[in-house]
């Protein structure tokens, strides 16, 4: 009797050990992948469409660190030799700079098969995960005549109701350049932009976050702001009194980018994770929920959804590609000027 | 100079603070200089309180402390200076104006507190056991010092103490307090000679308090001490019945020759022990029936006597105060 009991016990233990070792053959068993990404809806989508299949397939655990891209950007530099994050999502300008400074790795199509399906614009900075259009957000409750041009913001009737975004930043930089272009300048001749924005004073606010922007539109303090199309449509879908316009002078192109730090400890897992992120399932979910335009060519969108974002090669090409290399080089001087000319009275 | 005298905890400080205006009486009024000030706030009463722990302002120099009351009264600076100088001279602190109070000795602090109170010429100066924190010698010095200052400035003062000697030497009138009540008011001599209750008799000076019964026989009133001894008295007219007879040790004599005069009682007893104090001595004698009597001897009279020997106490008939028990 006793012997059989012992035998059963040993057998059970062996079975457990065996099962562990079977699972242990998976690549990520016992490892943790640290991913830095935006919170709220993005977190939910990522957990559902990326983390879940990734963890099932690899056996690794994913730890999400939520926050704005600025925190991640500066962290990548500060922790260059010993990064905490394995995957860091950045804004377009940041990703370009980090790639140039070799703080993050370039694309690796061998381990990220989805890379080949990306539009060329998304391939250029490594792993572009969403196309964004920086256009005009306006208040449908107070503005009856929908704007068509950036110049409409300088209409005297709207004085005190136009809120710029903080410079430098995706929306803020785009707005400065578009202000310059609308007033006869461009990236290389930025004076016109600064002078034009200075004319918009007093500002109801200088924006830096999405929640405060939406609140400003809701209370009626803000009628116009430069904004990324996805945020506008998301707020509109929730019942916000806003709409989005592609102005006639052009709508700057922007992108969210997934990056892998140069010295990342789990590059192999990071690449698998990004591959899931670029998968049509996830891209479609992002388009559905946040109206982020897919960077994966194989994603098919229903027409009514496609109308709300830059979809397809042609529309993407129509977006305005700013000279980011030049802008980044000038950024420091421009920030100085922004502080003095725009933020001071 | 009025002294509030009583054991600690009897309410002296409370009464003083009521005069100063820091306590509101639940009943009764406070009159100052012919005016009812019961509802006047402390700062309008023009009293000056010297605290037991002095309550000097630690953030001010001696000069600033003393000048405080005058500054509050908006005196011009020049007059303040001269008044402060004058008062510091009086208390013997001239030249120390710029010192910080924390750097001064207890006696000096005491004098700063006094100067601070005096300089505003209060209508009444209130002192709460001002000498209790000083050493014995300094205390004696300050007694006369305070008294003379008070005389020279002609200020009414209320002085709190639990030390009867202090009260007797300094006071013009003494208020004896017990358990929150005033029990006797009078000049030092009066209070000493004729205490109106056993408490006062016991508290002021030393008293022998004998319990017994007042009786009357053919020769007049008679006090029968519990246990037997009889004392014949003159003058003290008290109703018959239980009573306490108080007598001062210095009113009694020890009889060496065994000769009592007509006007004296002679009480036999046994000398239990003697307390020798230098210029005087106390003899503790047990009367028959167990009551104890204390007898004082002074100066040359002080003599060494055998313990446990029989002895006779001579008690003048006019000595002693009859108190109700």
């Amino acid at each position, binding site marked *: 009797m006793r012997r059989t009991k012992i035998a059963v016990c040993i057998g059970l233990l062996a079975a457990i050990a065996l099962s562990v070792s079977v699972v242990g053959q998976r690549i990520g068993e016992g490892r943790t992948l640290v991913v830095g990404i*935006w*919170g*709220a809806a993005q*977190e939910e989508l990522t957990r559902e469409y990326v983390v879940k299949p990734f963890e099932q397939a690899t056996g690794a655990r994913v730890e999400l*660190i*939520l*926050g*704005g*891209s*600025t*925190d991640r*950007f*500066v*962290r990548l530099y*500060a922790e*260059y*030799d*010993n990064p*905490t994050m394995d995957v860091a999502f950045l804004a377009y300008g940041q990703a370009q*700079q*980090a790639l140039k*400074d070799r*703080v993050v790795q370039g694309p690796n199509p061998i381990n990220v098969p989805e890379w080949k399906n990306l539009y060329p614009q998304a391939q250029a900075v490594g792993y572009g995960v969403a196309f964004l259009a920086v256009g005009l957000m306006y208040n449908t409750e107070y503005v009856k005549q929908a704007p068509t041009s950036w110049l409409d913001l300088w209409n005297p009737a709207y004085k005190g109701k136009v809120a710029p975004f903080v410079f*430098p*930043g995706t929306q803020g930089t785009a707005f400065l350049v578009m202000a310059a272009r609308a007033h006869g300048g461009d990236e290389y001749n930025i004076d016109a932009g600064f002078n034009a924005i200075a004319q918009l004073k007093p*500002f*109801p606010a*200088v924006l*830096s*976050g*999405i*929640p405060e922007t939406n609140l400003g539109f*809701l*209370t009626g*303090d803000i009628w116009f702001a430069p904004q990324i199309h996805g945020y506008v449509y998301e707020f509109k879908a*929730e019942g916000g009194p806003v709409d989005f316009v592609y102005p006639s002078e052009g709508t700057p192109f922007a992108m969210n980018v997934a990056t892998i730090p140069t010295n990342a400890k789990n590059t192999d897992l990071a690449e698998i994770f990004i591959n899931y992120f670029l998968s049509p399932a996830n891209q479609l979910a992002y388009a559905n929920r946040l109206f982020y335009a897919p960077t994966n060519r194989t994603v098919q969108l229903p027409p009514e959804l496609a109308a709300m974002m830059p979809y397809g090669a042609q529309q993407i090409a129509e977006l305005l590609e700013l000279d980011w*290399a030049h802008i980044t080089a000038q*950024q420091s001087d421009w920030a100085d000027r922004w*502080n003095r000319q725009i*933020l*001071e009275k | 100079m009025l002294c509030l005298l009583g054991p600690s905890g009897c309410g002296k400080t409370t009464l003083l*603070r009521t005069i100063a*205006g*820091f306590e509101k009486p639940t009943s009764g009024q406070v009159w100052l200089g012919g005016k009812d000030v019961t509802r006047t*706030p*402390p700062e309008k009463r*023009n009293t000056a*309180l010297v*605290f037991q*722990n002095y*309550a000097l*302002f*630690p*953030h001010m120099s001696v000069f600033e402390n003393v000048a405080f*009351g005058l500054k*509050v009264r*908006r005196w011009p600076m020049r007059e303040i200076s001269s008044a402060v100088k004058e008062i510091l001279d009086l208390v013997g602190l001239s030249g120390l104006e710029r010192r*910080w109070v924390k*750097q001064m000795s207890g006696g000096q602090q005491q004098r700063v507190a006094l100067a601070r109170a005096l300089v*505003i010429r209060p209508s009444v100066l209130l002192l709460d056991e001002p000498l209790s924190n000083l050493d014995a010698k300094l205390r004696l010095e300050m007694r006369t010092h305070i008294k003379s200052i008070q005389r020279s400035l002609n200020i009414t003062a209320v002085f709190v103490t639990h030390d009867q000697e202090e009260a007797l030497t300094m006071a013009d009138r003494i208020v004896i307090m017990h358990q929150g009540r005033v029990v006797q008011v009078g000049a030092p001599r009066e209070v000493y000679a004729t205490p109106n209750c056993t408490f006062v008799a016991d508290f002021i000076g030393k008293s022998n308090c004998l319990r017994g019964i007042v009786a009357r026989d053919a020769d007049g009133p008679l006090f029968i001490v519990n246990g037997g001894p009889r004392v014949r008295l003159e003058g003290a007219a008290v109703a018959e019945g239980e009573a306490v007879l108080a007598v001062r040790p210095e009113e009694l004599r020890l009889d060496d020759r065994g000769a009592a005069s007509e006007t004296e009682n002679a009480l036999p007893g046994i000398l239990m022990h003697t307390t020798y104090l230098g210029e005087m001595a106390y003899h503790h004698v047990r009367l028959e029936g167990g009551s104890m009597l204390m007898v004082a001897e002074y100066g040359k009279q002080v003599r060494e006597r055998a313990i446990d020997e029989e002895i006779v106490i001579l008690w003048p008939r006019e000595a002693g105060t009859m108190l109700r028990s």
Partner: protein
Amino acid sequence: MTLATPSFVILGIGFLAPLVLLFLLSWRQSVPGSGLILDQWTTANYTRLLFDAYYFKIFWRTFTIALYATLLSLALGYPIAMAIARSKGRAKAFLLAVVLTPLLTNVVARTLGLMILLGRHGPINNLLVQLGLPRLTLVPGVPGIVIGLTQVFMPFLILSVSSVLENIDPALVEAARSLGCTRFGAFRRVVLPLSVPGIVGGSLFVFLLSFSAFVTPQLLGGGMVVVMTTLIRQQAMVLLNWPFASAVAIVLLLVSIVLVGTYTRALGGAERRESTRVAASSKISSWGRAVQELRRASYDLAASLGRAWTRLARYLRPMRLALGKLRFMVRAGGWGGKALIIAFILAPLPIVIVSSFSGSSLIMFPPRGGFSVRWYVGLLSRPEYIRSFFISLQIAALSVLIGVSTGTLAALALVRYRFPGREVLRTLFLSPLMLPAVLVGLALLRLLAMMGWTATFRGVLIGHLVLVTAYVIRTVSASLVGFDRSLEEASRNLGAGVFRTFRRVTFPLIKPGLIVASIFAFLVSFDETTVSVFITGPGTITLPVRLFSQLEYGLDPTVTAISSILVVIALLALLVADRLLGLEKFSTMR
């Protein structure tokens, strides 16, 4: 001194080493448009900063905002501190709870509450409009920032002042009144000067915290009021110009040290008078003399102002009568005034709580989308918030334990013993509060990355301990200053050893200071955001960091829901502490 060693080790790792990194960095050159740093030395960062009036202007603005916040805190906080010092039992426990609640609501949540409250469409402006008055533009703008900083940091002043007020012998007030002072006069001439050490300590905290605040000026300034922290953050985080940001930080640190040193010397007279007196006889530095002159001049100024006022008042007798009436009204309205101040302290709380039940994902007041508990229910499916709560709790508890014990030792060393470098050490311990937190965090991150300690629990703990130690040393020192050493000597004389003396005599007597220090330590750690954003990582993300990271994108009523829960937990904890231990014991002196 050996007593200060543990604190010094913490300071060394958590502050001095990063400071050295920053100092070295500040002489380097960054490459524009890149995060790279050239390997050559330059003075360009300093010349750029020092020879440009713009930076001075920003400094001046930050300085004045912090100054206004400090003065407003003093004006509003002092009466409350007096009320706390005077009250007993339940009333005292209630007042303490009121004062501490704002510090327990998360910085993001309470600032949002204020934004709504003071906003163009907020309750205050709506009331004004109803009364037929014009709207006030408090937010966005400097007034809103000052109000916000005051609301948040005033508790530091209140607790500092009340712990000193409780030490003042009530007989001193009576002495003054018996010498002819009115109630107000006694306050002005006796209580106020004696409470100066508390005012110095408390106002220093408010000033330094206001000076280095980021979230409040950013949100309440509508992104349009540039202060030093905005500038440093922009340089360090967006433009990656670390050398320039470091140079700004180093200069700020030096300026702060000079400012704070002058301030504590000039005002801390009562605290140091004796020592300066002693020093006066031997030798006195020209610096000390200058400070003394300054102090004397300020006293003279105050005196002559007082005299001028007296003269004026004599001529304007009617005015004096009116003033008397005003005083009477102030006294009558005293409790009304205090109630208003308490209302001000608590103001954002109802907004935070109500908006946490909003049906919509925007934080608004009144909330839209009807009543809903979805943000509370949502929390259930987000275990990471609960995990973060416990991490925060753990770090705060450890910060209190370690910070208060080591800090008290260091304070003992600093107050009791004279040794070379004492003043330097004293300043050093306070300086983590003078260096902008953004850069403390960044430099600490660099250091921890080098040590391989990023995102570790001990790394986060060290970061918190450095800040906590500063508060502890300052607060405990203040309570040691008035300490009668003969009590310790008595104890030693009666045969008690060093440790027993500390436990039985010193500790019970400085307990109020230690308790206030512990409260500060806990709250500072529990609410610390700016440094923690950098040094936390997977597994060590604290609650404030989690909430703060929602600010740029994804801020929803979850933040207010968590803050409401925190307040409820805090109140429950206070209630339990009151039931079990009796809260008033924690704050009374005798």
